[in-house]
């Protein structure tokens, strides 16, 4: 291996590592606020990327119908709850937002010349379709069992993951897709050609991390989420509704997932089930951070990305095995250093 290859692999590793870092941050955040281990995070990646690919092909993305279906179900649940408790003044808003948004979006998609739009507009549309699925998923799946044990929530997440992979196959088919790059721009840095897309990925990740930091530090909603993460009951006593906190974290998680998918779709071919492996690598990073520390998780993500890039050079057949066995020394170290008392559930 010479310097050129090392730099090339390093660029690869950094790009992937940036994506894993985003996913790991989302996983840590969702776990801290809702105790849900978000196995299906990777599916948001695949849905985001493949929805964008369908938009670029000029096809009405099938995910919009999933959004309509989820929104209808959730609106139906909300409306029956409102009627039962006599809060009729909420009905208009629930019907308006619950059904109006997805139907308006579907109408917009039908009218627009999808394939002819600029890439950024397509990306925004893809986000508009996929991101609302996050809070809807929280409403339909997790809100009724928000008090269940971590184990039950984890099994539910796995069930949702399985269903989403099956739906992904139905929506997008078995073929992989690659989308057009955001820019053709590239430049030489020493001996290595740096592509515009990897600059996009790293820059977008950095911007997003800073934005998340500002959100959690400076805004009322961010502080509410942090409070919920530290003490659920205490936050509730201070007037932070757990359902709101849950939905908000799922908005962020779905946004981070879908955006990651959109960012990497021009670099790697995405299949309907690719998201899972990408999400799991985010997990390895999150576990390095003990599912609690954001900076450690981000560092772990870079480590995972670099390890993956370099092991694909030395032992490409064992790339996945090497990345996933990285978790073993991490677990060993954690189990030697932490003295854990199980929380009563």
């Amino acid at each position, binding site marked *: 291996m010479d310097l050129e290859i090392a730099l090339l692999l390093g660029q690869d590793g950094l790009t992937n590592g940036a994506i894993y870092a985003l996913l790991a941050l989302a996983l840590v955040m969702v776990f801290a606020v809702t105790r849900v281990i978000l196995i299906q995070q990777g599916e948001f990646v695949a849905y985001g990327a493949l929805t964008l690919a369908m938009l670029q092909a000029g096809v009405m993305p099938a995910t919009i119908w999933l959004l309509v279906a989820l929104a209808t179900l959730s609106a139906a649940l909300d409306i029956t709850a409102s009627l039962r408790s006599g809060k009729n003044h909420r009905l208009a808003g629930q019907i308006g937002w619950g059904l109006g948004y997805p139907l308006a979006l579907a109408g917009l998609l039908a009218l627009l010349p999808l394939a002819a739009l600029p890439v950024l507009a397509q990306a925004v549309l893809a986000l508009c379709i996929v991101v609302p699925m996050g809070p809807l998923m929280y409403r339909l799946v997790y809100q009724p069992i928000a008090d269940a*044990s971590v*184990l039950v929530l984890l099994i539910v997440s796995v069930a949702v993951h399985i269903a989403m992979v099956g739906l992904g196959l*139905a929506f997008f088919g078995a073929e992989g897709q690659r989308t057009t790059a955001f820019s053709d721009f590239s430049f030489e840095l020493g001996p290595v050609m740096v592509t515009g897309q990897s600059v996009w990925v790293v820059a977008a990740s950095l911007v997003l991390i800073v934005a998340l930091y500002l959100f959690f530090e400076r805004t009322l909603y961010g502080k509410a989420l942090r409070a919920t993460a530290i003490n659920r009951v205490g936050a509730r006593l201070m007037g932070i509704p757990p359902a709101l906190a849950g939905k908000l974290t799922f908005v962020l998680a779905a946004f981070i997932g879908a955006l990651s998918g959109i960012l990497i779709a021009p670099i790697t071919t995405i299949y309907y089930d690719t998201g899972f492996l990408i999400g*799991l690598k985010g997990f390895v990073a999150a576990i390095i951070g003990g599912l609690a520390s954001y900076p450690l998780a981000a560092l772990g993500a870079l480590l995972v990305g670099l390890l993956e890039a370099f092991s694909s050079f030395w032992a490409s057949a*064992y790339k996945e*095995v090497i990345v*996933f066995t990285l978790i073993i020394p991490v677990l060993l170290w954690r*189990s030697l250093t932490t003295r*854990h008392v199980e*929380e009563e559930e």
Partner: protein
Amino acid sequence: MNALLTPRKLQLAFLVVLAAAPWVLSTFYLTLLNYIGLYAMVALGLVLLTGVGGLTSFGQAAFVGVGAYTTAVLSTSSELPAWIAWAGGAPWISLVLGLVLTAAIAVVIGSLTLKLSGHYLPLGTIAWGISLYFLFGTMATLGGHTGLTGIPPISLFGWTLDEGHEIFYLIWIFLLLAVLTTKNLLDSREGRAIRALRGGMVMAEAMGVDTARSRMVIFVIAALHACASGWLYAHMQRFVNPTPFGLHIGIEYLFMAVIGGAGHVWGALLGAGVITVLKQWLQDILPRIMGSSGNFEVIVFGVMMVLVLQRARGGLWPLLQRVVPVRAAPREVRADAQIGRAHV
């Protein structure tokens, strides 16, 4: 209780029906029953782990793979290294070796994750399940993705079990023994400690239960069940490839345990039966509805799991218990019995 339908009579009737099954059922249904038996054995381990112990594992399919591949390599490879050559070609020896190997792996994974909080074991088993699947697929000695063929059938006292109805008895004897031993384990002193795990660690530890040890015990037992199932699978199928040992099958095993009723030993059988039959049926009709082929049954399974966990967390077995008196009468504790001998 209705004298016509006592639990004992029901169990007896179940055994009679089971023993008669190979004589009446067609090959298709017999094969289905064989699979249900194999799956139920894995699900039984998960019942012990998840429903009783409050832990879980997504990597059980990988343990099934260890059992299947151990016996497949030992009984087909012609160039075994000298130190292991004595075990070649003898299925019963490779069963023992597979069990030992599985126990060793389970102890390692367990000692890494069981000291941490409960969700690290499932996450660790996901990583382990994926790694092992890729390893099966890439290692040339394990046949890569094409797998290994020509595994000999099991023979027992000179009787070769190479027909579906012959191995049927072996599978179900294995399964019923596993059910019986699991029930006995749960009724024992050790079992009471295991059942205390789910109520919270601090409480159990305050009562003097070594929780780390109890968790390890059930994790190893669950892994051994899976390994035995894999051994039977390899000799029934006479062929192994990595597909049935992937992570998604591991998740399916967990679905069986949860849908059947994760807290009940017989729930494993019920869950394995329901999922296997449903899968067969869905694989038949769904591609026709969707207009293309693919694993669309997972959508139904996923949604079903969410609904079961939201509405009936105990699974289907408790619902069945309301209709049929399948539960054994609780053992009576006599007030004057000696404390050391009283059953709970």
